[in-house]
Each structure stands twice: as structure tokens, then as C-alpha cells.
């Protein structure tokens, strides 16, 4: 469904606003929106292709017991163009005023120096579609692998605690301890843009108190002793991966994660996002992959 929408945006961009496509570093336009006037894209950082040591997101099991997947080397084969900053509340508000995004949470000031928070995965994608249409470039959420690559040393790898796999309670208790240790460390109030500084790639505010949505779906996969997948993974795209100080799996429609009930530990203090921009060369590849992905998901059935 949503891939279809992006397809249309990309076609419109190709026909229309070629001027902004070549600009790698452009500042946010300050002028008022009028109709479908194009705006310049946000500040981005271009990362060269490379690789990242990465442990896949999802639930993995070995011999029917919860297990951590092994770390593998994931290659990023094309330059990765990603927003330097998280999308601000004021930027998001422009999409709201353009009737393309759901309103910010009541009581949230659309400040230009604060990240947009209480943003669901759906909100983030609405914004990506809107921004793509306005700029003529193709914006989308990063995959979890791309986020890890861009976040570099700010990417937090987390393996399951190493305990007796035969006793389900031991893992449960160990995980509870791990999650409990995160409590009370993170304030909820969003800080001004830049408060958490830059990582080695020049990306600002990664892993602060705003978690960032990715496009990666929640998967469940059985693996063998070597970590190789066995059988078919089940994929639940109703739940997506959000990245920050720790990895979180959040239903796509949720704007604010809270603990409570059986859940423990500090959930993401805030949900926000930054987008990647597919280059003009990449757009065709992206479309092809989208079609391939679509076909393969159809063929699986």
C-alpha cells in the first residue's frame, strides 16, 4: 500500500523539481507553504559505502529456546544520505499544516529547536511522503541496518543474557534485571537540538532521549547452532524497530511508549525520527527492490 504512494511521489519528483535533487547540503526553507511549492531538503550527511557489525533485530530461537543471533557483517553498498538532525517539531508542524500529517500531541509546542516527539511510525511515514512530494527527492525511514551503520559507536548492541536455556524463568529474570538497570536514567522532556552532540559521522543527537523509528519489521526466526536461519521467518510489520539507547519494538501506531503491567524497564523516553534520502541513481534501485519485495511477499503466499 504505502509503497505505492512512494512510487507516485517519486514519479512526480522526476518530472518536476529537478533543481533540488543535486543539492546534498541544503538548509530548510523558511518560506510559507503555498500549494505544492517545492521546498529545499533538510540538512543531510552523506556516508560512504562500508560495513557494520550488526546483530539482527527480532526474536530468535535455537532448539525452541530464546537465543541471540550472531553478529554479522552487513554491507552498505551505496552511499547513505541521512538527515543530520532529527526532524524538528516545527518541521513536522509544516506537514500538519499541509494536511498531510496528523497533528502533534496536544500541549506540544511546535518548536524549531526541539525534535518532534510523540511520533508514530505512521506519522513518520506520512512526513516522509509529504517531504518527498515537496522536495522531489525520495525520503524514507532508514532500515535498522542503515541506522546502525550511521549511528556507528552510538549503536547499542544487546545480546540476551547468557543463562540456562532450559529454564524459561532464568532468562526472564535475567532480562528483567537487564531492563531494570535502565530505569531512571532518561528524562522525558526533549532537549534542544544538538544537546546530545555529534557522533563520528557528524550525525547529531543519536541515542539521546529521543528514539528513532526504522522501517525494519519485527521478525521471529529459528536459527541453528551457527546462527543460520532454519525454516521460514514470521514477519510482523505491525511492529517496527525503534533505535536509541537500546533497541525497542513498538507497534506502528504508538506515539508514546510507557511501561506498566507486566512490562518493565525504561521504554523509549520519546519516539521521533530522521529520514534517509535515496539519491537519483538509487531511486530506480529502490523502486526495483520495492517491486521485488512486493513480488516476493506475494510469492511467499
Amino acid at each position, binding site marked *: *500500500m*504505502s*509503497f505505492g504512494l*512512494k512510487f507516485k511521489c517519486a514519479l512526480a519528483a522526476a518530472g518536476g523539481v529537478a533543481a533540488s535533487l543535486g543539492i546534498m547540503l541544503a538548509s530548510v526553507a523558511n518560506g510559507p507553504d503555498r500549494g505544492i511549492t517545492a521546498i529545499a531538503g533538510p540538512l543531510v550527511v552523506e556516508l560512504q559505502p562500508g560495513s557494520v557489525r550488526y546483530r539482527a533485530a527480532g526474536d530468535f*530461537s535455537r532448539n*525452541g*529456546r530464546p537465543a541471540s543471533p550472531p553478529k554479522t557483517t552487513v554491507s552498505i553498498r551505496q552511499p547513505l544520505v541521512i538527515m543530520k538532525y532529527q526532524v524538528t517539531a516545527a518541521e513536522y508542524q509544516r506537514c500538519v499544516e499541509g494536511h498531510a500529517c496528523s497533528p502533534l500531541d*496536544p*500541549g506540544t509546542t511546535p518548536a524549531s529547536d526541539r525534535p518532534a516527539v510523540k511520533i508514530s511510525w505512521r506519522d513518520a*511515514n506520512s512526513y516522509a511522503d509529504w517531504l518527498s512530494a515537496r522536495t522531489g527527492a525520495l525520503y*524514507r*525511514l532508514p*532500515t535498522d541496518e542503515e541506522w546502525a551503520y550511521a549511528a556507528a559507536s552510538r549503536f547499542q548492541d544487546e545480546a540476551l543474557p547468557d543463562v540456562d536455556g*532450559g*529454564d*524459561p*524463568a*532464568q532468562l*526472564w*529474570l535475567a532480562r*528483567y534485571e537487564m*531492563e*531494570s*538497570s535502565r*530505569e*531512571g536514567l532518561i528524562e*522525558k522532556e526533549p532537549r534542544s537540538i544538538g544537546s546530545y552532540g555529534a557522533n563520528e559521522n557528524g550525525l547529531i543527537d543519536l541515542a539521546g532521549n529521543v528514539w528513532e523509528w526504522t*522501517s525494519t*519489521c519485527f521478525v*521471529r526466526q*529459528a536459527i541453528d547452532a551457527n546462527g543460520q536461519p532454519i*525454516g*521460514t*521467518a*514470521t*514477519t*510482523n*510489520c*505491525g511492529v517496527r524497530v525503534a533505535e536509541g539507547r537500546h533497541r525497542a519494538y513498538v507497534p506502528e501506531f504508538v506515539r508514546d511508549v*510507557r*511501561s*506498566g*503491567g*507486566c512490562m*518493565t*524497564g*525504561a521504554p523509549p523516553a520519546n519516539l521521533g525520527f530522521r529520514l534517509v534520502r535515496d539519491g537519483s541513481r538509487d531511486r530506480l534501485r*529502490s523502486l526495483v*527492490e*520495492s517491486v521485488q*519485495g512486493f513480488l516476493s*511477499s*506475494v510469492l511467499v*503466499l
Partner: protein
Amino acid sequence: MIVRKIQTMGIALSALVFSAPALTQDLNLPREKVELVAPPFVHPHEQATEQGPRIVEFKLVAEEKQFVIDGEGTKIHAMTFNGSIPGPLMVVHEGDYVELTLVNPAENSMPHNIDFHAATGALGGGGLSLVNPGEQVVLRWKADRSGVFVYHCAPGGPMTPWHVVSGMSGAIMVLPRDGLRDGAGNPLQYDRAYYIGENDFYVPRDKDGKFKSYASWGDAYADAVSAMRSLTPTHVVFNGKVGALTGQNALTSKVGEAVLIVHSQANRDSRPHLIGGHGDFVWETGKFSNRPETNLETWFIRGGSAGAALYRFRQPGIYAYLTHNLIEAVELGATAHFKVDGTWNDDLMTQVKAPEAIPPNVRGEREHPVQSARQRN
């Protein structure tokens, strides 16, 4: 109408205060001084005793203080007994005398007193214990019936609900001298006891829906009463704060241990439930002269009462103890966790087959087709 009520109550209270006899008469009984501990813990005590009745001395200090009630840092102007919400659990035996020194330090701004639901006469002692800032009082009453009972501040009129929902409540456990019994009269013991006091808070909001804070108790009062009259709590919590009994503060036990959980709610109904466990023996109305109910899934704590549940853990892991109005438990905060050590019992429960894709049937078809994944990129 309300004004008249306040005046009437004031007269009633002052009449009681002035007509009360001075407590000079001494009882020729042994005395025991007990140091109270903050909930969820309970001071050391005998479960059954061979000693005769005694005078048990306790001290409670009314503390007006700022209190953070959730993870977002929402603060209220709280009123407390001994600085905790709820106040500490006192334990005595039936036939003992409770001798309470209630202190109202000079730094406080309001009169306070105490109404023991376990005590007989003078509004549960409230009529004989009203102290202004800078005063203290000693009240003695006979614990002539067993059970778990609420105590709370009750300074009169609209002050009473306000003081209670601001934190001034706790509980006392009066044990039968020969300890707890099941319905057939067999003795019951516990390896540890926890006291969980539940509170409903009503924090006023500003026009944007954000919680308001105030310079003082007096400044907060009018808005607090409006919020209270909505009868819609903004927080329902155990031990004074969202998360006070979870994570690093979770309650602990181990397989084979019997745990007595005393649960009080001074103002509002609650429905305790232990997810993955039960109440082996439950005194739902809290009074030990009644037979305990057995094997309960959820029990009911009437507002203004305390109940007790005894459970022996059989399986390790994390248990949530919550009010089974799940909205209140999850959204408003009324959840505690137990971390239980031990060895898993496969006989009680086992995961026969881990989650996996639904297998095709003999014709190679899926019986429950997976819907097309709505996947981007």
C-alpha cells in the same frame, strides 16, 4: 452546607478533645517499643505468641513533604505518616494495647490526627489525637479484634478526604495470639510479609493537560478538591509512586516460600490479582476471625479496608501483582512485581512447541493464510 458541616465537625471534635479524660491511668503490663519500617517491609514480629498481652509502643510523625508520584517527575504536596506513602504497617496481637505517640512537627502547616479502624470509640481515636504543628499526643487503645485494618488521618470535614488522598493512610495487623489458621483450624505460617498500600491521586491539570504544581498546600487545595470531585484519579499507585515496587524495587521471593501480602486502600475499591499465581488463603475483608477463602484468582479490597492474601510460590520468574482493573494497573500505575528465584517446574507448565510459522496441512495449504505483510521498502 459545606461550611456548616465543617463547623459542626469542628464542634464535635473540640467537644471530644475537651471532654476527654487525661490518659494517666497506667496498666500493669509489660511494654515493648517497636521501630517501624517503611513499606513494603514489615517490622520483625512473632506470628503466634505465647506471651500475655502487652503495651506496644509506636511513634508516627506527620510529615508534610513534596512527593514525586511517577516517572515523569509529577510532584504533589503530600501528607504522610513517617514520610512514606502509605504509612508503616504496625503489627500487634489480639489483646495487646497499642500506644501511639503522634507527633506533628512545628514545620508542618496543618493539624493532623489518626483514625484507627481497628480501635473502638472517639472516631477511631481521631477525636483524641488531633495535634497542631508543634504538638504531640499519646493515644492508647486495645486491639480487641484480629485482622488487618486501615488507619488514616481524619482532621474533619473536607480536610479528611484531602489528607487521605494526599497520602495519610496506613494499616495495622492484629494477629490472633495463636497465629493464622486455615478454614479447618490448621495453623498457617508465612516466610515473609509485604505491605502494599494503594493510593489514588488526583493531580490538577492546566489547560494543556499538563499536571500543575503549586507553591504550597494552601495554594493547591481548591484545585485539588475540584480534581478529587471528578472521582477520576490521575494516578492509582502502590506505595506512593508509579514503579515503587517494580524493577530495582521489585518484591522478591523464592519457590517454596509462603508470602503474606497485606493490601490496604483507604479511599477506593481495588482488585488485587497475582498474574501467574493465586491467593492460596485470602482474608478478603481482612479479618482473621473469618475463615480465609482459598485458591482465589482476584480478590476485592473495599475502599477503607485492608485485606490479606497468603501465597506459596511454586514457579520461578516474574509475577505482576496488580489491580485487575487493568487500565488502572497499566495506565495509572497500580502494579508491583515479584522476582521469584527457583527451579522451573515443567509439570506445572511447559512450552510444548515454541512459536513458529503455522505449518501447511497435508494438502500443502495453509489453514490460516498469513495476510500479506504491509511492508515498506
